[in-house]
Each structure stands twice: as structure tokens, then as C-alpha cells.
């Protein structure tokens, strides 16, 4: 087995709803290994986003331990959480979340800036990442000047900038049409082939089929955790040639 990246041990998350406590996660445990590509499935309200927030160290679990690369990160203050997010986690959101006033290059530079890299290092790295997602020509554009699929590619470039241990994507294709969605999935495949560990929240079975492992949540509990055959999207090979193959 390859290197253990993270390990969840009986993670619980409670939300205070007025007088009552609502348990969004009721004890979830699983491990994730280096190089895996995993789909996180489950009906709406089952706790997928809640779990993603905990995995992304945007939030602390109410109970349970979260070991990221062997380090317990479940009870950190916001300062330390920010540092770990910056260094280990790459986020891709359903609604892209690019900063509207920054151009594409600057958007990709943001995590590098918070890490305190020198401007030259940042620029070089951001250019490399934009090149990886095939948008280097448009580096001057503002997010409002590009398409949804392109935005999501920039978001992927930004998520990769710090060379994260884990790429978290919460419904990354949710706002995209099927073909553009497949392109983004193609990109994830290429990255995964290069060794990036990817966790994707999705509602679409077709997307889950493209991974090697599916984890299902129901009512805050792990319903199933299955390994299965990976079926690549048709565009995947195309996409990879287009974005990366041609420039290698």
C-alpha cells in the first residue's frame, strides 16, 4: 500500500440548532492513501460538504481525530489551520470562487503569496500552473472574461500551486455542462496519474464511475466504501493531450 495521507477516526460534527444539537456527522472513519482518486457520494444533506470542510481543515470536528500525514489536526486554532490549509490542501469549489478583481495569474498566485514566496517565484510557479491547465495565454484576463470551464481550470491551477498533499473538490462539475465537466474530470485524471491525491464530492454516478473508490454517506454515517474499476471519460485522453501532452 502506498503512503497514508489522512486518517479519520470516528469524526462527529454537531451543529447547534436553537436548543437542540443537530449531528451532521455521526462518526465517520476512513483512510486515504497517496495517489488515490476517491468519489464522495450521498444524498443531499447527508454531510458531504460538512466532511469536506473538516478534511480541508476549514472546520474542526466536534469529536474524533483527524490525522493528516500523521499529525492530529482536529483541534487547532484558526492560525494553525490556515497554515496547514495553505501548505497541504488544494480546494476546488462548485462555484469556482476566483477573486474577481485579480487576473488569472494573480488568482493562482494567492496561496503562494500567503506562504510568503518571493514575487518572482510566485510568478514562475503561477505561470507553470496556468500552463498545466492550458490557460497560460489568458493569464491577463479577469475571471469575468472567461467561461465557466476555464474558471474551474484556473481554480484547479490555483489549488495545485502549493503542491498540496490533497486536492479537495466539492461538486467541481456541478455548475458545468456535461462536456466541460468531463474536461475538468480529464484534468483530474491527468493530475491523479501524476500522483496527486484527489477527493471529489459528486452527485453524478458517471463521475463516481471514473474513480477507483467511492465512499457513500447517508445521514451523517458512512454507508459504503467500495473500490471499483475505473472508467475514464472519452474526452480524457483528448484533454490530456490537448492541455499537457502537446506541451511536453
Amino acid at each position, binding site marked *: 500500500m502506498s503512503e497514508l495521507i489522512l486518517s479519520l477516526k470516528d469524526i462527529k460534527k454537531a451543529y447547534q440548532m436553537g436548543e437542540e444539537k443537530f449531528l451532521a456527522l455521526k462518526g465517520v472513519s476512513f483512510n486515504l492513501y497517496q495517489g488515490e482518486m476517491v468519489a464522495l457520494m450521498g444524498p443531499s444533506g447527508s454531510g458531504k460538504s460538512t466532511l469536506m470542510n473538516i478534511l480541508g481543515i476549514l*472546520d474542526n470536528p466536534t469529536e474524533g481525530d483527524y490525522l493528516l500525514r500523521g499529525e492530529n489536526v482536529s483541534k487547532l486554532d484558526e492560525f494553525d489551520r*490556515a497554515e496547514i490549509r495553505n501548505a497541504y490542501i488544494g*480546494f476546488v469549489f462548485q462555484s469556482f*470562487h476566483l477573486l474577481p478583481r485579480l487576473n488569472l495569474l494573480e488568482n493562482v498566485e494567492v496561496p503562494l503569496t*500567503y506562504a*510568503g*514566496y518571493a514575487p518572482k517565484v510566485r510568478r514562475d510557479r503561477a505561470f507553470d500552473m496556468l500552463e498545466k491547465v492550458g490557460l497560460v495565454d489568458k493569464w491577463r484576463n479577469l475571471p469575468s472574461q472567461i467561461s465557466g470551464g476555464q474558471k474551474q481550470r484556473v481554480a484547479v491551477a*490555483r489549488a495545485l500551486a502549493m503542491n498540496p498533499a490533497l486536492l479537495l473538490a466539492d461538486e467541481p462539475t456541478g455548475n458545468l455542462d456535461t462536456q466541460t465537466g468531463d474536461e475538468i474530470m480529464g484534468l483530474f485524471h491527468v493530475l491523479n496519474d501524476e500522483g496527486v491525491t484527489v477527493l471529489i464530492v459528486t452527485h453524478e454516478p458517471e463521475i463516481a464511475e471514473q474513480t477507483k473508490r467511492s465512499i457513500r454517506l447517508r445521514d451523517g454515517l458512512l454507508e459504503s466504501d467500495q473500490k471499483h474499476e475505473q472508467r475514464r471519460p472519452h474526452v480524457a485522453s483528448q484533454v490530456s493531450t490537448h492541455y499537457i501532452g502537446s506541451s511536453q
Partner: protein
Amino acid sequence: MSDLAQSSKLPAVHEDDFDVIPFEEAPYSGRLSIFEILKIAWRSIRANMLRSILTALGVIIGVAAVVALVSVGNGVRQNVTDSFSSFGTNLLTISSGQGGFGPPGLVRGGGSQTLTIEDAEAIVALADDRIEGVAPANQSNNQQVKADANNTTATIVGTWPDYEKVQNAATQAGSYFGSTDVETRKRYAVVGSEVASDLFPDVDPQAVVGQKLKIANVSYDILGVLEEQASAGFNNPNTNIIIPLSTFIQRIERNDYEGKPTVSTIAVKVEDPRDVEGVEADLTTLMANLHEKVSEDDYDFNIRNQANQLESVTAVFSTLTTFLGAIAGISLLVGGIGIMNIMLVSVTERTREIGVRKALGAKPRDILSQFLLEAILLSCVGGLIGILIGIAIGYFSTDALSVPFVLSIPSMVLAFAFSAAVGIFFGFYPAQRAAKLDPVDSLRYE
């Protein structure tokens, strides 16, 4: 991970240096540099330029007001101070009534006039050798004066020849009348430089001497032309016409007190400034005796020297400047509240941005500095612009008031420091609110 690193070494489209360091080995400080924070803050100010300007306007107006008001206040004060010191510190001015303040040239007895020529003569009779000169004076403003085809408005001053040294009003051409001219009520005049140039345009002052002028249809011989003098407070000595006191009483205006003609002021010049207080005491005794007043509360005259005159004027101006400064300070405070208001709006508006930045690794500290610096930048740039505008307003209004333009560096530094403090104070709460936002909630914020 290493795969990723390898794949990122693609042929670069940008000009690269020879010493390419792989990203994994590139040094990083682990913290956002102040320069980067400034850049972020400046960008967001620029993105809402109009709003930023309007927000800064409160501070701009406040600081401009402080700088302009203090500069005008100082200019007026300096002007008054200058005119006081041009009379010298060894001048005593006796006037009717219980007191008050103002430059001696201005003083006209409020209420009834109780000083008479006899009082002045009594002072001369003291033959005190500490006293250099005595000049009782009456004055009449806005008199029409004619000479040939020209006419002008002048202030007629009736006095004694000592006026020249007592009030430092020397002639540039010709001379004063003598004491015998006063006794014989000669119709002689010594004119201010402006009167001379108004009545005899393009005529050399030397040639003005010997000409005639008419006041109230009475003709006077011009004996001398005064040197140009600095404007003293609110009256212009260059529009004075000085004539013998006796002539004034006969021809211009006569007021009596117990059957004797009055004078509005008696100016006494003391030779040595160190004797001023002694002479003042002696004159007080003399005047009290002459007017038969026992208690100080009954005195119908007052004697003031330049030092305490200056003190009271300076005190009034300081109070005024402080007061105006306080009003301006309040407007700065209002400007600060404006900044706080907009910063709070801005934090709400940018909740999602804050969430994204946090997700990408911004620490609470980074977000705090970003918003705090934005507020400080707004108020400091506002402060700088305010100082420039304040200087301009101060310059033009002192020019319009024809008082000296005094740049008060301390007031500018204070105004700037205050505006920076306003930025810190009013920017802190919104910035802290931004820093404390929960990343999950702010990412979800619509």
C-alpha cells in the same frame, strides 16, 4: 508529488533567468509581507475609486479645515503681534473708561470721553525724564479730502508733534508741525503715503510738500508726507492725515467734558522699556488725582502697556484657534466614522472573498492587516490631500485678508497623525470583524 514537480518544468513562455530554482526548493517566509498587504489594500481602494474618494472626503475636509484655520489664525495673530511690536514695547496708552483691549490706534473711548487736554498737559508738566514724548490724539474717520481735481477718504488725526516719535510715524518728505503751530491752530497737515498718492497721483512726495488740500472746505498746507507703514490691525495708517490737535478741535470735531475739550487717547512713550511699569504706576496716581478718583473701581480711565495688550490679544487668538481646531477635529472624527461605516459595508460585501482567502491560507492576522491597512491608507491619503488643500486655502485666504501666511508645521503633523490615528481607530473594528469571520460560513455567504 515529485511527478507534479517534474511535469511543472515545462518550457516557459516567459523570459526566465538562468538560475531556475525548482519550486520545491524556493525559499518562503511563511508570512505575508507588509508590501503584499499594502498592494491588496490599495487594489481594493482602487477598485471602488469613487467610493474611496467619498469616504476619504470626510478626513480630507477635516484635515484641510484644521490646517487652513490654524494657518489663517496664526497669520492674523502674527499680523496683530507685528503691529503691536511696531509701536514698541515702551508705549503706554491712556484712554477713557475701564479698559478693554485693541491696538492703540483703534481706541476710541467707548461711552463718555473723560480725558482732556489738561490731562496731557499735566503729564508734560511732570517733566519726568523717563518720558520721551506725550501725544494726546483725537481722530475722525471717513473724511472726504480734496486737492485740485482729486479726492479721497482719510482718517484725520489731531495730535501734538510728539506723535512722530510716540507712534513711530516718521516723514519721508517734509516735516511735522511744531508746538507753536499747535498753539496758533495752524492749518497744517502731514499726510500718509496713500493719501499723498491718491490726491497727487504720479507726483513725487517731495513735490507734494507745499501743496494744499481741503478737509470740509477748509484748506490746509501740506508740511510732510509719512513713510509707508505696515497696516496696524484693522486700520491703515497710510490713509491718515495728521493735523494739530487744536486745529482738529476747532475745525473738525469738538467734545467737551466739564467744559474742557476731550481727547480720545493720550499716548506716552517711555524712554527705557524697563521703566514702563514705574511710569505706568506714576501716571495712574496722577490721573487718579486729576480725576479725583480714590478707588480703582471708580477710575474713568485706563492705562495699558503693549506687553499686557499683546498678552490679551494673543490669549484671545489662542482661544479662537483652539476652538476652530476643535471644530475641525470633530469633523475629522466624523470622517473617521464615515471610514468605519464604509469599511463595515466593505467587509460584508467581501465576505466571500474573505472566505476564499482564508481557504487559500490567509491567517486572521493577514485579513486584519488587509482591512486595517485599507482604512489607514484611506485616512492617510485623505490626510495628505487635506493638508495640501488646507495649505492652499490658508495661502489664498491669508492673501485675501492681507495677513502674513504662516505655515504651521506642528498643526500639519498633528492633523496627519490624527487622521492616521482615526484610520487605525475606526478601521480596527471592521478589520477585526473580517478577521474573525468563520471560513466555512463566509464561503457559503451569498
